[in-house]
Structures are given as C-alpha cells and as structure tokens.
C-alpha cells in the first residue's frame, strides 16, 4: 500500500484561537480508497482540523497538499471546487429552504439559466431514497424535519457532490443503527470507487467497522497515525485520553429494584397530538429511568416535547404527583421540576453569545425570576463545579459557548439542566457527540442521580446505552407505543424485535 501517494496531506498545522491553542503541529494524510478515522476527545481539535482544511478558518502555520500540489484554500467554496465535499458536525443547512434545494443548492439542474424545479425534486427524491433510504416530501421546508433527518440530508448532499475527498464530521451522532448500516454501505462503495474519506466519530465500534487508518489527536497535538487493524481498542482509548482507563466496565450495575420507588411521579393517559404522536399511556415512578427506544422518526422527540409542553398536546392529560394543574408552557414544566435537554443543541440548546457560566445558570435563574439573582460568587462556584464534574474543556467559565467544541457544548447543556435539580429529567440524545470517556461519566451520573430519587426519561439512538441505563424501556414505532418492558424482559433482542415490528 505504501506506493500509493496520499491525495491529501496536511503537515505541521497550527491554529490558535484567542486564548486556545486548537492545533499545534498536526500532520494528517488521506489516501484514496481509504476511510480514515480522526479520533480524539471532545475539544481535541478534530473539527478545527477539518475547518482549517476546508477554508472556514485560516491556517496559522503549516501546509496543505492536494494531489501533491500545495494549495491554499480560502473558503469552503474553494474547497468544494477543489473536490473536497464536507459534512460538518452541526447540521449546516438552510432551514427555510426545501429539502431538495438543500441537497442541490449551488448545483441546481438548469436550462438556459432557468432552474428546473421538477427535475430537482425528482432527483432529490430519488437520491434520498436510494442512498439514505429516506422517503420524505422533498418539497417541504427543511425545518419541518427532525435533526436526524436533517443530518441524513446533509450527508446526501455531500455524497451527491462528485468529489475526490469526502469529509464526515460525526455524521452518525444522531442516527440509529439501521441508518448507520445504510451509510456505511454507501461509504464502502465510494471507497471502492477510489474516494478518500475522512470520518470522525466517538463510536469505537463504528471506527473498527469501517475505517482502515486512524489518526489520533489529543489537546490539539498529533499523537500518531495507525492502521486500524494494528491498533487494539484499548490502546486507541488510552492514546486518546492519555492514560489507561477501563471505562465501560466500571459502570455500577445497581439493580433497579433498590432504586425505583413505588411512588408514581408522572402519569400520562391517552396523551398525544394529532399528526405528531398517537395517544399514549405512560407511567414514570420516582427514581426510575425510562428508556425510549425506536427508529428515526418514531416519535421519541415528539413525545418528549409534549411532556415538556414545548409543543401543545391536543388529547389526554398528564398527572404529576403534587402538581397544581396542567402543564401549559415549558416554563410551567420547569416550575414543576421537569427538565428537558433537547437533541437540537444548535437551535434549541445553546445561547451562542453567552458565556459557559451564563449558559449553565440560565434555567435555574429563569426559575428564580428577575430579582432573585444568583450572586456572581455563587455562579462562579456552580460553573467551576460543573466544569470539573463534566470535564468541560477549556475549563474557563467565561469562554463563549459558541467557541466550544460540539461535545463540550453538550456537556454545558447537561449542566444547565442538572443544576435545576429536577424531579424528572428528560434527556434527548444527551450523549450526542460526546467522547467515550465523558459518555461513561454521564451514564454514571444519570444512574447516581436516579439513586438519589430523580426520574429520568432517556432517549438515545444508541441502543446499548438505553439498555445499559434503563429500568424500563418503552418502544415506539410509527409514532405509537408498541411495547413496554421491565426487568428481565429487557434485552437487546427483545427491543430490536419490538422496534422492527416483529
């Protein structure tokens, strides 16, 4: 293999942000016909390396060679015309445009300069069906679809651009297993066609499933480049974190019997909303972790939003123990000690212009009202505490949240909701984009909170995760509750069968 020349070579890349050294002396090679995984903890510099490559940020120092020629890329547009097609970590599409346009904008089919809409819709429909197995109305504006669908569309867009290099920055973070398999089969085919693929993920399984080569970054520094076959899992992890750790094994398996009280916390009866989720019955006990399992678009997010009153339900009702009437608004829900950590971190989570500290205290402050201000000293204490517990990096509470890496933003949002000490915590894809170390940390945290009496509604596309933490699993399919299982019934096989509709 050594006689093949890399199509892309980055040497000695440095990138400095105000106060943060994001990349220092990073080398990276990408070979045609290979999938190359870029690994590292949250904030290691993966996304930055990609953005530097595609001209979103300028390079402070270092060179980029494309097909043995040193090139200068000043904008994503340059990158695209140089044959680099990218899916960025956050979905970067235009919510106001139709699905088809989002796939084709900039490359619309035209005749005499006139855009052929019919053809575009047809192409888009075909593409999404063939490549992504997604059958949706492509004429609808993008904002009507969930983040996961948006992510699929972003991938479809990147795939449809004929390029030499394909970059996928955590494309699978909110996809379920089936979608991932689908994506991998496409990637394998492209690989065999000679495309060079850069792939970022925090799922080790996926790394070993698909990639040939691995580059590891830590704290913006280059650790090494390895062939996937030659790097054992445990070594990969220790190289990423910089120390040996037996992560996943450590999660305490507290049996749910000790934790779950008989006391009912929330009881939903015939609860639903037309066009979004069919009436459902759901009970959550105090101290219980209820997992929601289902495929993409099965209605998990929808249900969570209804419970939190982010959307208004139109049938049934929710009874909350000790509640004073129906929940009308999110604010109301928070007052009743419900917290909801949205899957859509970019649009519904972070407040870009505010600092990490302000983002953390926001929900708590909101419940306290305008005048009962949390003192600055207390705010600093809180921020420091959560930065330490969740290992938020850089550990500076005055950093603007928009400048944090994706995974670290997610941790800040978790901190925001944990701080309100809710009775019911709804977590929608809480570990989205979070590295393995932190993921285990968060799972442990959830369990220990439940131990203290908090109830959790846990949604994740990663089935293993749901299985690991849940006391009870509710399976949704086609926006309906199809099954509910407790205790010994819970097994990967059972859940999978229920999801698939067996």
């Amino acid at each position, binding site marked *: 293999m050594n006689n093949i020349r890399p199509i892309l070579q980055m040497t000695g890349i440095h990138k400095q942000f105000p106060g943060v050294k994001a990349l220092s002396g990073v080398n990276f090679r990408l070979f045609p016909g290979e999938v190359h995984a870029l690994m590292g903890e949250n904030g290691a510099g993966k*996304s930055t390396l990609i*953005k530097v490559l595609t*001209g*979103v*940020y*300028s390079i402070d120092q270092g060179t980029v060679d494309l097909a043995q020629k040193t090139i*200068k890329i*000043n*904008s*994503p547009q340059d990158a695209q015309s140089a044959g680099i097609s990218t899916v*960025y*970590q*956050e979905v*970067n599409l235009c919510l106001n445009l139709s699905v088809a346009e989002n796939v084709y904008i900039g490359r619309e089919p035209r005749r005499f300069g006139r855009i052929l809409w019919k053809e575009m819709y047809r192409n888009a429909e075909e593409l999404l069906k063939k490549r992504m197995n997604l059958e949706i109305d492509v004429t609808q504006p993008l904002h009507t679809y969930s983040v996961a669908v948006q992510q699929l569309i972003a991938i479809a867009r990147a795939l449809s651009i004929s390029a030499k290099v394909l970059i996928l920055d955590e494309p699978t973070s909110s996809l379920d297993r089936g979608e991932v398999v689908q994506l991998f089969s496409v990637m394998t085919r492209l690989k065999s066609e000679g495309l060079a693929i850069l792939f970022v993920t925090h799922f080790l399984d996926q790394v070993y499933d698909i990639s040939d080569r691995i580059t590891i970054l830590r704290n913006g520094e280059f650790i090494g480049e390895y062939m996937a076959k030659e790097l054992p899992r445990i070594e990969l992890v220790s190289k990423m974190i910089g120390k040996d750790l037996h992560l996943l094994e450590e999660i305490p398996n507290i049996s749910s019997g000790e934790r779950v009280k008989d006391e009912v916390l929330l009881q939903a009866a015939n609860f639903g909303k037309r066009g979004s989720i069919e009436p459902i019955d759901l009970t959550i006990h105090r101290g219980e972790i209820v997992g929601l399992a289902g495929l993409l678009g099965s209605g998990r997010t929808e249900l969570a939003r209804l419970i*939190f009153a*982010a959307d208004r339900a139109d049938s049934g009702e929710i009874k909350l123990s000790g509640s004073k009437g129906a929940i009308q*608004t*999110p*604010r109301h*829900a*928070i*007052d009743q000690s419900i917290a*909801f950590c*949205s899957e859509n971190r*970019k*649009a*519904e*989570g*972070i*407040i*870009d*212009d*505010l600092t990490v500290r*302000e983002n953390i205290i*926001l*929900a708590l*402050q*909101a*419940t*306290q*009202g*305008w*005048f009962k*201000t*949390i003192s600055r000293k207390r705010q600093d204490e809180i921020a420091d505490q959560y930065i330490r517990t969740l290992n938020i990096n850089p550990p500076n509470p005055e950093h603007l949240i*928009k*400048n*944090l*890496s*994706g995974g670290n*933003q997610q941790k800040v949002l978790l901190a*925001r909701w944990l701080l309100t000490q809710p009775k019911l915590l709804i977590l929608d894809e809480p570990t989205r984009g979070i590295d393995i170390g932190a993921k285990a940390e968060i799972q442990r945290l959830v369990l220990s909170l439940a131990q203290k009496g908090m109830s959790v509604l846990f949604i994740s596309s990663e089935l293993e995760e749901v299985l690991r933490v849940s006391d009870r699993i509710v399976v949704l399919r086609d926006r309906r509750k199809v099954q509910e299982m407790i205790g010994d019934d819970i097994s990967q096989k059972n859940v999978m069968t229920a999801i698939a509709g067996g």
Partner: protein
Amino acid sequence: MLKHHLFWPLTVLGALLLFNLLYAPDFFSIIMRDGHLYGSLIDILNFGSPLIIVAIGMTLVIATKGIDLSVGSVVAISGAIACLTISQGDGQNAVSLVFIAIGIALVLSIILGVWNGFLVAGIGMQPIIATLILMVAGRGVAQLITDGQIITVSNEPYKYIGAGSLATLPFSIFIVAALFLVASILTRKTSLGLFIESVGCKPEASRLAGIRSKTVMFAVYMFCGLCAGIAGLILSSNVSSADGNNAGLWYELDAILAVVIGGTSLNGGRFYLMGTLIGALIIQTLTTTIYMIGVPPEITLVVKAIVVLVVCLVQSESFRKTLISRWKTRHYPAESEVKQHA
C-alpha cells in the same frame, strides 16, 4: 485594551473632540455664567441628553432582536400632553401642576410602550412593522393633542427639566445619569440583562430554558416607551413648547445609530449601555461640530455620511486587519466569519 469593546467608540469620540480643539481652541473653555457652567461641552451634554435617554431604551429593545421606530412619535406625544396639561391648568407656575403633567405624560408613554410590546410579544408582529404603526399614528396623535399648533408654555418649574441647572450643571444631565444608573442596575444587578440577551440571541432556546420571553419583551418596549417619554419632556421643556409635528422627528434613526456605534448588534444578543452612551455623545458632538465650524447645510449630510462610515470602519475588525495586512504583506487570507461552532 485594544480588545475592550469601548476602545474604538472612545477613540472616535476623542478624535472628534481633538479635531474641535485644534479647530477652535476655546471649544473646551467652560466658564461660569449666572451660577451655571457655560460652554460647548455643556451644550453637547445638554442637547445630547434626550438622545442618550432614547438610545438607552432602544439598546434594550435592540438587544431582544427588536427595533422601535416609534420613539420619535412618543417623544412628540409626551411633550404635547405635558404642555397641554400645563397650558390648560390654572396657576401656570404651580409645581404641583408640573408634577401632574409629568405624571400624565410618563403614564401615557408607558402605555404606548405597552402597546408596542403587545403587538410584538402578544400578537407576534414583526417589530419593525408593529412600531411603524405607532410611528405613523403617534405623530397624528401628537398633533391631535396640540391641535396642529405649537403649544407654548411659560412655566418656570417645567422649564427647569430641560433648561434648568443643578449644581452648576444642566439638570437634564442628572436625569440621564439617573436613568443610566437605573438601566444599568436593572440589567446588570438583576438577571433581566441576562434574559434580554438570551431572548435576543435565541428566542426558542430561551423559551425552552424557561425564560418568559414575552414578559421580557413587554418590559423592554415599556421601558423604551418610558425613556422616549422622558426625552420628550426634556425636549419640550428645553424650548418651553410642544411641537407635535417636529419634535423628535427622525429620532429613531439617530438612536439606532447611537446603539450600533456603541457596539450592540442589530441581530440582538449582547448589549452595551455604556457604548450606547458614547455613541450618542459621538452623534451629538458631530452635530455640534458641524454647526460650529460652519459646514454649509447643503453638504452637512455628506459630512455626516462620511463620519458615520469612518466610525463604523474603524470599529470593523476586518477593516483594520485589511489595513494592517496591506501594510505588512501583500496578501492575507480573510478569516471567514463563522458565528457558531459548526
């Protein structure tokens, strides 16, 4: 220090003052006359005070991603109703009458602010069109109050608001100081400021974080109305008359300009009250300078345009970078602006 958000506005203000100093050395001279200070700088503060006050209110509105075009009309209405009350009351010089007049004017301004807030937060109209309604109709209301005439009042206590002096300084400066203090405390010592910035930056995310964004919007439009009302009192009291048609004409533009020069973005989010204050002073200083150095009225606007552009350019980081890089090297890849972590 270069990084501080007030650095460039202050530099511009300094440069303007320096220009005046070079042009007319006695620009800075302040003398004592009849027990109060007298000089161009005092004039700038005095005439600038209504603008500063309106701009303070505007800052908060803009921070919520809104805009209030109706401030000019509210200025006119408040002045008109106050003068009408005084001119119709008996005992023109009674202090109590003045207080009643002020009370009526301010209550009316707050009501108008609430109206704006209702349209924006309650009904959900786009701020620019919601406030445009009051901008158009409000001017009519002001003229309705004055019956299209200029109401002249000769009431000494009333005159004191805008033209009197306290401890040798114009009284209006104290109003500004008080209001600035109130606004700062309200936004920085309570969590209102945090909520405003949060709502302005991401309304949906704020709603899910449990912030009552509608109440926040109501509050800022109400406050903005109040500010405009106070400015209207100062303006009308300064000339002891109320002019429904002309008072506060185009004030909204100057106020928005002041806010933006001060570093607050029209896209909402972070706001800087101190920046706004300096922005308003820049505008007033510029106006006074134009009068002082005798710029012919035909080219006043051209001068103003150039100064506004220069002010914005020096504040623009990309512009400074381009300048510097032109000096140092021949080419420099422009850092693309990326607002969010992608």
